[in-house]
């Protein structure tokens, strides 16, 4: 007897890089509304993303992790989720976050070095951005357990990088989720790089989807630059989870077109020719070509979208820059539900040394 762990290596793909429908696509036609929604969300993300990088360059924002070229992953997943589902994102997942209702201002406030950026107005139950790589998988597993225990039809979704799949946390939490069969979807953004470390130095596994085998959960590969396929695969996994079918690991293949973060300089360690080649597969132009070929999109629509996005981003930046600083007491206000009495002295010390009219970032 031989185990059945056949995970196709060829990723699921509906749209070829030139926007043509692939022969392998299950549907003959892709719903126009969905395609337009995904395209708009990606364009919105990219507009925001570019501005955030620019703000950092001019000293108005802290370190920022661009999602350039990987917008389809977050957008596909975010669009497939329901409001009541919960996302446990990494630091590169504003595509999904924005789609879920987290505002640009919140994201800027966070990267601007202010905790209030994680106090999302909506969705209230989403986890804040997770920086310690891999740790968020366990949070999502626990959240999924809570949903199952309470018989809620909610799904926990978490996103992690290719490098993150080397961590013990990724595996041990996925393994736990497998035993518990909780409603969980783990998305790997395989953008090929963990800072300067290529995927080949992270693992000898045939694909990252194969990591699922060790946890006894389903693994699937998808073209992460194809928003339609991404959405389809995510929706399928979410449905399965909601129906009690347990966790899925989705490896979404993409490429990090930008630096790791604004603190990084990727030209130090990678070949610009490869980056240029990868850029030709990027998700926005792909879906735009598709929409254009189908007559669903044109230059005017594009120009208007660009304008709208630019305006929205501009308003967000203004609101961000106008955000008054927190007072010293922010350090103490939410440490516990109630500040222990023995910390009163420290609070007073902080007050005493707080600058008058603390300035902006």
């Amino acid at each position, binding site marked *: 007897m031989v185990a059945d762990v056949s995970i196709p290596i060829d990723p699921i793909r509906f749209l070829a890089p030139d926007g043509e429908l692939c022969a392998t696509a299950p549907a003959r036609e892709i719903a126009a509304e969905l395609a337009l929604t995904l395209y708009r969300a990606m364009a919105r993300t990219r507009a925001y993303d570019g501005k955030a990088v620019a703000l950092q360059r001019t000293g108005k924002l802290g370190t920022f992790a661009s999602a350039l070229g990987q917008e389809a992953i977050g957008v596909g997943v975010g669009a497939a989720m329901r409001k009541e589902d*919960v996302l*446990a994102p990494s630091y590169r997942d504003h595509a999904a976050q924005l789609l879920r209702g987290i505002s640009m201002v919140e994201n800027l406030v966070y990267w601007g070095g202010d*905790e*209030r950026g*994680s*106090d*999302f107005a909506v969705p*209230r*139950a989403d*986890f*804040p951005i997770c920086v*310690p790589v891999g*740790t968020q*998988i*366990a*949070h*999502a*597993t*626990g*959240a*999924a*357990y*809570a*949903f199952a*225990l309470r018989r809620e039809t909610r799904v*926990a979704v978490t996103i992690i990088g290719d490098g993150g799949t080397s961590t*013990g*946390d990724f595996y*041990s*939490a996925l*393994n*736990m989720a497998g*035993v518990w069969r909780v409603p969980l979807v783990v998305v790997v953004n395989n953008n090929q790089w963990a800072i300067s470390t290529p995927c080949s130095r992270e693992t000898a596994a045939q694909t990252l989807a194969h990591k699922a085998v060790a946890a006894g959960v389903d693994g699937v590969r998808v073209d992460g630059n194809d928003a339609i396929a991404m959405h389809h695969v995510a929706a399928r996994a979410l449905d399965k989870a909601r129906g009690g079918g347990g966790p899925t690991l989705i490896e979404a293949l993409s490429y990090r077109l930008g630096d790791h973060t604004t603190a990084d300089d990727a030209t130090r360690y990678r070949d610009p020719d490869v980056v240029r080649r990868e850029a030709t597969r990027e998700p926005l132009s792909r879906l735009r070509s598709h929409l254009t070929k189908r007559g669903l999109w044109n230059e005017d629509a594009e120009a208007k979208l660009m304008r709208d996005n630019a305006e929205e981003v501009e308003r967000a930046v203004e609101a961000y820059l106008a955000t008054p600083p927190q007072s010293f007491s922010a350090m103490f*206000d*939410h*440490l*516990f*539900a109630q500040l*222990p*009495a*023995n*910390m009163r002295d420290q609070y007073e010390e902080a007050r005493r040394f707080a600058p008058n009219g603390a300035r902006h970032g």
Partner: protein
Amino acid sequence: MTELTLVEAVNRALAHELERDDAVLLLGEDIGVNGGVFRATLGLQQRFGCERVIDAPLAEAAIAGAAIGMAAMGLKPIVEIQFSGFLYPAMDQLINHASRLRHRTRGRLSCPMVLRAPNGAGIHAPEHHSESPEAMLAHVPGLRVVIPSSPSRAYGLLLAAIRDPDPVVFLEPTRLYRLFKQEVAEDGEALPLDTCFISREGRDATLVAWGGMLHEALAAADRLAEEGIDCEVIDVATLKPLDGETILRSVEKTGRCVIVQEAARTAGFGAEIAALLAERALYFLLAPVKRVTGYDVVIPLARLENQYLPSVDRIAAAVRETMEASS
């Protein structure tokens, strides 16, 4: 009221809260049918079901992380780590997440979890089963650290820990699990989580201890009483947040302080208490503060364990020296 051992008191507190609050659940290795390696969860899976008393895979980091996710979604997970020497893999989740989820989200999410673990030496256990990492945990902002010293305090403090809206590390002195019984009211009354207890009153010197060491301190006080030295003995109980006022008041009265700590000396929690005295007791200290602690060595295996641990002899000698230094 019935007489219970400390581990039975823990069991009773867990049962009480599982009964009272649907959001409470237990999570750990071998806590189900087996009732935990020390039987702290005995009978609870039978009573409350597999979904609320969960045998988890062997992965402390994932257990702690999953508990954080559960807590963030409104459950009140109580994690059992089999021995405190195996909680190190969970420290990343405790420090980087559990302790700061409320702060990071400005109160939007919180982490009302309890992490319990048997702590300390004294039962001739195998390697890595005798650790005392409480000082490390007490250093972490956003965590509470509680160590009971008797069945009734275990019961009342654990109730408080479970009801606390923030993460609490609850370290149970292994050596006390079955050392003695005590009447424990089944009244659901929690004890405060920010108070030291005066376990014995006295006027000559203050002994400060917690967990297993409290009993060595009390025994030393008994012996010293025969010599005419009258010790006050304080059970710290909640290390974080520390009730420094009770300690200071006692030392103001006695003028002398000996701190007893099982963990290795350097940067142990005793240092924090000594620092408190250096900062705020200078004008009424009659003699230098003393720490009687484990040495700065790896805690030895069973055959040398007793030579590592603070003993009644060592504590009594320290108090005598303190008396002499100020006579």
